[in-house]
């Protein structure tokens, strides 16, 4: 790796010594793992479709506090609480805890480990250079510990804003723990200005018996952003992880969902929609690890790429030798608007058990001319017709979003994206 970059990140890590109580050793180890691996390249199988050039060539400073007041995006509907992070730091003034704090212990990462320093080793170190660097350089995040039996229907919004952080990175880590039978919905949002910045975020969750974590991600970063994010989720008996990722913004964006099924009866649903405009690249990678049997996983991904846009999906399902009666399904469909658009699909099934039902399907195609003509032959203008078809195409991947207002807001963004394509075409 570039020496200058390495020295730069090492000195950032030095600055952060002591900021997360109990975590210094773990962070030191993560930094040396990062040093060993460096940033991933296309030669690494998991990163073969992501262009990491900018990460490999540019030192991103630690993002400082915003010098001007950031604009907080409007809520998408009812929320239980809003937590706002500006440049990777929790902003108390912009946040609104609602009544949530009465039911749920909420802490910042630093505070959490202040009183539980011995638990700092629960931080997941990572699985590649990017996530090791997150562990080494994270400075803030949210810890949500949901007591057993607590069910909160409205989404808990975590809003990440990048503001005036040119050439800087925000490394954030959220830790979610759900007690038995608890249920929450976390809506993560990512927005930013036109600066070149890097969001490097990890959410790690432990979902215990009978608990359910809904995780919706709406990625609307600024046009020049690099966005790398991962979720690491461990599922107990009858536990559920219901994730929907929406990738719209940024120049290069990537989300990885890693779900480990540790006890019978768990259920992982990981869905996603990505819309790539010209020059954009969205990458989604999933790994569902069925370590035990009698559990289900389901994945639906729909992506759309305009001219010279790129979307990629890599879906890995691992079924261990003893994980009998596993049901795993995976469906990926990509639309490309012309021959210069790119869609990559790589389903990967590693099945060691013999009594399982695992399926996958992947298709890549263009919008159906016959369908467009049918709609226009009923008086619908071609722009609306294409919009309707793209909305219909993405609908399956949004079906698991339980909040109607959030789903509507996502649909609106999809039709706005289509309108923007149409306007661009006529200019």
């Amino acid at each position, binding site marked *: 790796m570039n020496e200058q970059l390495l020295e730069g990140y090492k000195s950032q890590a030095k600055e952060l010594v002591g900021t997360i109580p109990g975590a210094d050793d773990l962070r030191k180890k993560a930094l040396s793992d990062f040093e060993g691996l460096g940033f991933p390249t296309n030669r690494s199988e998991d990163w073969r479709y992501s262009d990491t050039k900018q990460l490999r060539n540019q030192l991103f400073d630690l993002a400082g506090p915003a010098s001007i007041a950031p604009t907080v995006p409007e809520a998408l509907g009812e929320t239980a609480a809003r937590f706002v992070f500006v440049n990777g730091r929790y902003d108390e003034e912009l946040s609104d805890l609602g009544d949530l704090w009465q039911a749920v212990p909420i802490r910042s990462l630093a505070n959490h480990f202040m009183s539980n320093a011995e638990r700092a080793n629960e931080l997941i170190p990572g699985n590649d250079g990017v996530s090791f660097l997150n562990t080494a350089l994270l400075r803030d995040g949210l810890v949500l510990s949901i007591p057993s039996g607590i069910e909160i229907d409205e989404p808990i919004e975590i809003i990440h804003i990048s503001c005036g952080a040119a050439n800087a990175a925000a490394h954030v880590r959220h830790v979610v723990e759900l007690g038995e039978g608890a249920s929450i919905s976390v809506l993560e949002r990512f927005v930013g200005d036109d600066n070149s910045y890097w969001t490097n975020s990890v959410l790690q969750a432990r979902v215990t018996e009978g608990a359910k974590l809904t995780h919706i991600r709406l990625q609307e970063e600024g046009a020049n952003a690099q966005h790398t994010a991962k979720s690491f989720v461990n599922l107990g008996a009858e536990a559920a992880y219901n994730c929907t990722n929406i990738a719209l913004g940024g120049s290069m964006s990537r989300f990885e969902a890693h779900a480990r099924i540790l006890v019978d009866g768990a259920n992982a649903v990981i869905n996603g929609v990505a819309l790539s405009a010209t020059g954009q690249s969205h990458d989604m990678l999933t790994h569902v690890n069925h370590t035990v049997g009698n559990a289900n996983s389901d994945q639906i991904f729909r992506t759309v790429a305009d001219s010279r846009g790129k979307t990629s999906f890599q879906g890995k399902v691992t079924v261990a030798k003893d994980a009998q009666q596993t049901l795993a399904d995976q469906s990926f469909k990509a639309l490309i608007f012309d021959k210069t658009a790119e869609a990559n699909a790589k389903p990967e099934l590693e099945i060691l058990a013999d009594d399982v039902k695992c399926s996958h399907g992947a298709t890549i195609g263009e919008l159906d001319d016959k369908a467009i003509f049918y709609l226009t032959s009923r*008086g619908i*203008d*071609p722009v*609306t017709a294409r919009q*309707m078809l793209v909305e219909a195409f993405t609908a399956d991947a949004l079906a698991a979003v339980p909040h109607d207002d959030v789903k509507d807001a996502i649909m609106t963004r999809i039709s706005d994206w289509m309108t923007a394509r149409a306007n661009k075409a006529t200019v």
Partner: protein
Amino acid sequence: MLNIKDLHVHVDGTEIIKGLNLEVNAGEVHAIMGLNGAGKSTLANTIAGRDDYEVSQGTITYAGKNLLDLEPHERVGEGIFLGFQYPVEIPGVSNLNFMRTALNSIRRYNGLDDMSAAEFMKLIRTKAAALKMDPEMLKRFVNVGFSGGEKKRNEMVQMSLLDPKLAVLDETDSGLDIDALKIVAEGINAQRGDDTAILLITHYQRLLDYVQPDVVHVMIDGKIVKSGGKELAAELEEKGYAEVA
């Protein structure tokens, strides 16, 4: 209402329509009969404005306007409806949403406000009931999983809802059993009126037992070779195309 002069149409570089003339007036029902490959469907699709159908020569005038200047959706706004021989399945778009969007698109084209959801529901239920369509089918995705007869009935419900001035029905009778055929015929007859015109494209005389045409045309190799009254259809049935033409 519709005036076609010396029409030549190419599809994928091949000339399919080779100098066709046709005049349809308000209040009339015309039937165009012909064997497979005569160019009947090409004519229907050309009137509707399908973009891979290239008009190389001739004119189509509709209600005094040059139809060929209009986009497909604008033609619909002007009152033209194409009933498809093979209605397209559109997964993910509900029949209701499709029909409401279509109706409101036409209203907007004509400077009217959108119809309210409640008003629309009332209207579409009436239309569906008149054509004996199960209201559940309105909630399903457009034509997905519909039988051949259900798809054609769905076309008729759309026609009735959009209430065109000129309906061009491409083989609407094909693949229907006798009960479905009667329902479709009822739909077509209900659309007849002094200020509407209907162009029926078919290669069987069967539908014409239920929908009496004013004029019958015989189309062979991209041209209308003979026109006459409804008795021409019976003659075709009896003697075959070769002898009549």
